[in-house]
């Protein structure tokens, strides 16, 4: 990159199964206040660009993403944009804005109020509108078809999936924002009944309400603000065909392509935060990224411990940022996904400043 891009602030709310009455503005504001405080600014007037990620269909409130702007302080008018995607892609847009020289700093946020709707069914309507959406096949069932392919071909076993869950729950004990945590053994988890076979409930990320926010800027701006930062040294994404039958669902071709494009050097990653909404998908990602045993995978517990739809991808980047500025890691990888069965994947590499 010609322009060094730095992450200077991150905040995420707790992942709640039900955020109660709070609307989008009320979910977003505490996280915005937290990131403003981290860099010592007062509102969105103090950054050059704002980009958010959300999906109004989750809560069924038309133009909730526009209402969300009420949290920003947009008088006088600000430069603002939105992606109907996870906020990791809002981060991508903000990075482009800075790299093009159109901004020196940007606020990025995502919010999720999934509890008012039936999320797996809402997500069925993002599928191809002629062949799949009219069948109302939900996101959990599609993931189950993917897991079955892997089990049938001997790529993974049920105990491998349970081990992913056990690790997530264990790591999440340290994560105050997590929704699900605790000590569970693989055998305990395998004793649970099947949900949508071969998946058990624990193999599926929970449905969570909440929000996350981040501030990024040029290196000179970070120095001006005089705050600790992590360098965002690479970010890229790839998408695969919507036709699930044409994809090899047992691997992640698009993740491999991004990893190659970014030269992620998996041998020098201290941590990796992967957005795997289903346990077997973490195994797919670990393999596609050729992660080494030395890399600490999902130290936050990942999204199996709490999944803020439309914000979890940004939060993966934030979790890596937090650990770099805390000195727990020098180099980390963040992954975000979108679409059914890991259709669309984004990677970001962060390094100590």
């Amino acid at each position, binding site marked *: 990159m010609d322009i060094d891009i730095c992450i200077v602030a991150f905040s995420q709310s707790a992942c709640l199964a039900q955020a109660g009455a709070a609307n989008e503005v009320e979910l977003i504001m505490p996280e915005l206040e937290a990131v403003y405080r981290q860099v010592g600014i007062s509102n969105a007037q103090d950054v050059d660009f704002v980009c958010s990620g959300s999906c109004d269909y989750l809560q069924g409130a038309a133009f909730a993403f526009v209402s969300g702007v009420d949290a920003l302080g947009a008088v006088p008018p600000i430069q603002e944009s939105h992606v109907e995607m996870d906020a990791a892609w809002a981060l991508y847009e903000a990075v482009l804005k800075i790299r093009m020289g159109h901004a020196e700093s940007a606020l990025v946020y995502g919010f999720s109020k999934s509890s008012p709707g039936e999320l797996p069914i809402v997500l069925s309507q993002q599928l191809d509108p002629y062949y799949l959406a009219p069948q109302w096949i939900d996101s959990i069932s599609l993931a189950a078809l993917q897991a079955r392919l892997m089990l049938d071909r001997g790529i993974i076993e049920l105990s491998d999936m349970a081990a992913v869950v056990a690790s997530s729950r264990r790591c999440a004990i340290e994560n105050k924002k997590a929704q699900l945590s605790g000590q569970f053994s693989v055998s305990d988890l395998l004793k649970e009944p099947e949900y949508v076979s071969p998946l058990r409930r624990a193999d599926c990320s929970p449905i969570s309400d909440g929000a996350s926010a981040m501030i990024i800027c040029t290196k000179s701006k970070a120095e001006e603000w005089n705050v600790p930062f992590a360098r965002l040294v690479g970010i890229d994404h790839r998408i695969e065909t919507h036709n699930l*039958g044409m994809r090899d669902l047992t691997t992640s071709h698009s993740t491999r392509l991004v990893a190659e494009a970014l030269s992620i050097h998996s041998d020098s990653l201290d941590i990796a935060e992967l957005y795997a909404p289903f346990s077997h998908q973490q195994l797919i990602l670990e393999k596609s990224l050729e992660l080494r045993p030395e890399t600490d995978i999902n130290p936050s517990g990942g999204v199996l411990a709490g999944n803020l739809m439309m914000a979890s991808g940004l939060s993966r980047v934030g979790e890596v940022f937090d650990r770099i500025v805390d000195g727990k890691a020098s180099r980390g990888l963040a992954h975000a996904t979108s679409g059914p069965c890991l259709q669309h994947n984004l990677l970001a590499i962060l390094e100590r400043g």
Partner: protein
Amino acid sequence: MSILLVQFLRVEGLVEDLFLQKEYELGFTYTRSTGPVVGKFLTGLKNKKIFGNRGSDGRVIVPPMEYDPETFQPLNDFVQVSDAGMIESWCWVAEPRPAHPSAVPFAWVMIKLDGADISMIHHVVTDEPSRVVTGARVKASWIDQPVGLISDIRYFVLEK
């Protein structure tokens, strides 16, 4: 004077925090244009026939796609395939959701129809769930008066 008339009620004070909620339904009553490729497939269904088309690599894709995802070429070489095939993957839905196409427990399946190279997604209804396995043979059960929708295939049934 105005100060006497203005009351300030603190958030935590005189008013309890209410969790007001209301059930409602959002409806999007769209009519969708099919284009020639999807239209060919749906017209086939209306006549209880299943059409796919050949991808740039010669593989038969069912349902047909408008463009090849690898070469981006438009795809027009239509091929009729069988309405029977083999289960490639499946999952068992013990508790169907209200939106699901079956009210009784069923299996979502990826099916490779005979004559196709790419599997399609549909569902199997059976009272013998243990027979739903990868490799099992299934056949389409058509509704009596197809209209040109994917639901013209009521579901797939296990072959004897």
